[in-house]
């Protein structure tokens, strides 16, 4: 599998007037292979920025990010990415969309179809995205990321734009696929209960871009949202999260007054 090592990662953002904001303030983190790690935090904690840096979409100011893959000799770990919006090429069919992100020209079809089946869309391979619902499009996005059989899977709040029922169904799909392949996953979300349901570890970022705490989730899999054990843990984690948010709100108010 693959692991991600983040050492002392800093990202500062300078706006047009020269003000510097530290979005990430020295993140030290290791994501081990075959674990599902969620990154949560109140808004302003830099979680999406962290994900973008790991994926290469954004550059960082200092520090290192290393992805080490057992299967590959080169540094280039294969990355799969699921965005908040499906980002499918509207002028290509579902299967063609899955093919677009593959490295190889041939032999990917079977693999792709397998993952499409896993999300329940095996029969819609020839449709255009415009013919699918939002939830179906997002499922295609998930299948696409899995179908490249990446070393590392990065997901940026993939269910935040969907309704509750669809999200619940998709979480089940996601867990089912993940159990099959056990890739290293980094999953950003603002929904703490979702994080508890899906992850092995939850990294909580504080505003200002620091790691506040890391919570291990030791519940057996597969997990059902209706399981009482899951609910208990969710309540606990939510309480700690709310405390953190209250702290952050206080700090903001203080900053506004003293500014």
């Amino acid at each position, binding site marked *: 599998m693959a692991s991600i090592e983040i050492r002392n990662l800093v990202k500062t*953002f300078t706006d047009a007037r020269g003000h510097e904001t530290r979005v990430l303030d020295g993140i*030290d983190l290791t994501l081990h292979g075959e674990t599902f790690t969620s990154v949560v935090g109140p808004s302003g904690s830099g979680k999406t920025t962290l994900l973008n840096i*790991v994926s*290469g979409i954004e550059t960082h100011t200092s520090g*290192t990010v*290393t992805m080490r893959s057992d299967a590959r000799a080169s540094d280039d770990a294969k990355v799969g990415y699921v965005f908040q919006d499906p980002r499918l090429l509207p002028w290509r069919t579902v299967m063609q969309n899955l093919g677009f992100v593959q490295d190889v020209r041939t032999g990917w079809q079977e693999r792709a179809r397998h993952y499409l089946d896993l999300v329940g869309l095996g029969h819609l391979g020839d449709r255009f995205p415009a013919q699918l619902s939002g939830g179906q499009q997002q499922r295609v996005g998930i299948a696409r990321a899995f179908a490249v059989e990446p070393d590392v899977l990065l997901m940026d709040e993939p269910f935040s734009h969907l309704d509750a029922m669809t999200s619940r169904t998709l979480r089940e799909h996601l867990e089912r696929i993940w159990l099959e392949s056990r890739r290293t996953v980094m999953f950003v979300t603002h929904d703490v209960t979702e994080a508890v349901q899906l992850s092995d570890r939850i990294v909580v970022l504080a505003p200002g871009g620091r790691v506040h705490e890391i*919570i*291990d989730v030791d*519940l057996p899999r597969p997990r059902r949202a209706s399981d009482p054990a899951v609910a208990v843990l969710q309540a606990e984690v939510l309480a700690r999260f709310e405390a953190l948010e209250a702290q952050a709100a206080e700090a903001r108010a203080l900053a506004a007054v003293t500014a």
Partner: protein
Amino acid sequence: MTSTVVPTPGTPPPAPAPPPAPASGAGPRRTRSGGSPRWLVSLAAIVTALLAWWLVAAAIGDAIVPSPLAVADRMADIVVTGAALEHFVASIGKILAGFGIAVLVGIPVGFLMGRSAFWTAYFSLPLFVLGNVPGLTYAVFGLVVFGVGATGPVVVSAMVAVPFIAINVAEGVRSVDGHLLDMCRAFDRSPAAVARHLYVPALTTFVFAGVRYGFAMAWKVEALTEVFGASSGVGFMIRRAYQEFQVADMLAWTMLFIVLMVLIERGLALAEKRLFSWRKDLA
């Protein structure tokens, strides 16, 4: 069940891998458009163009390529003597008359089209022809059928504008939300109320859009028709200048025409935004 683990840097970090390749060009641009403001660049470009023109005119030295100063002089003259006012008013008057006719014809046609696939198919070819017949044909047609005078340009403007109005009205009619109609029925609204509160706002929006898009097209064809057969208006003046080999005059009238058209189009766009801002939010 939970344990808080603060990750400790255990083994010494490996040799730092090269940072992930920056997404050159594709990454989110953090730089604001810190370049010069829009008006400055525009001005610089226009000044450069004028300068280039001036150099070319000076090099050629013949009145057949007049210098920008000569043209500017003529433009000032035209405006000051009131000739501009007289002829632009004449031209625009004809266009307005033409648009008036186009609206009278276009609304019923558009309404039929919007409600029925048959009428859409029926009108599609004639409207296409009307919208795409070359200006030359219109101009000569106007002259031959109506002779010299104002009627030709008015009729031609109407003919060019009708497709814009009709198609937009059809769009407008189709856009009247079926759900809203159901709501009206559920609340037992009278046909007059439905017309007033549902159809009229939709129609006015689309008629206005038709006017906006059709205006530039109609004016160009109308001006051309004036070149061929009118006794007043911008086209007529351009033609006269051409016959007298007064290139500076031709360019002067053309410049005024362009400036005025751009101003009117901007004005229409602004009006559309103001009057129909509720629509823009939905769109």
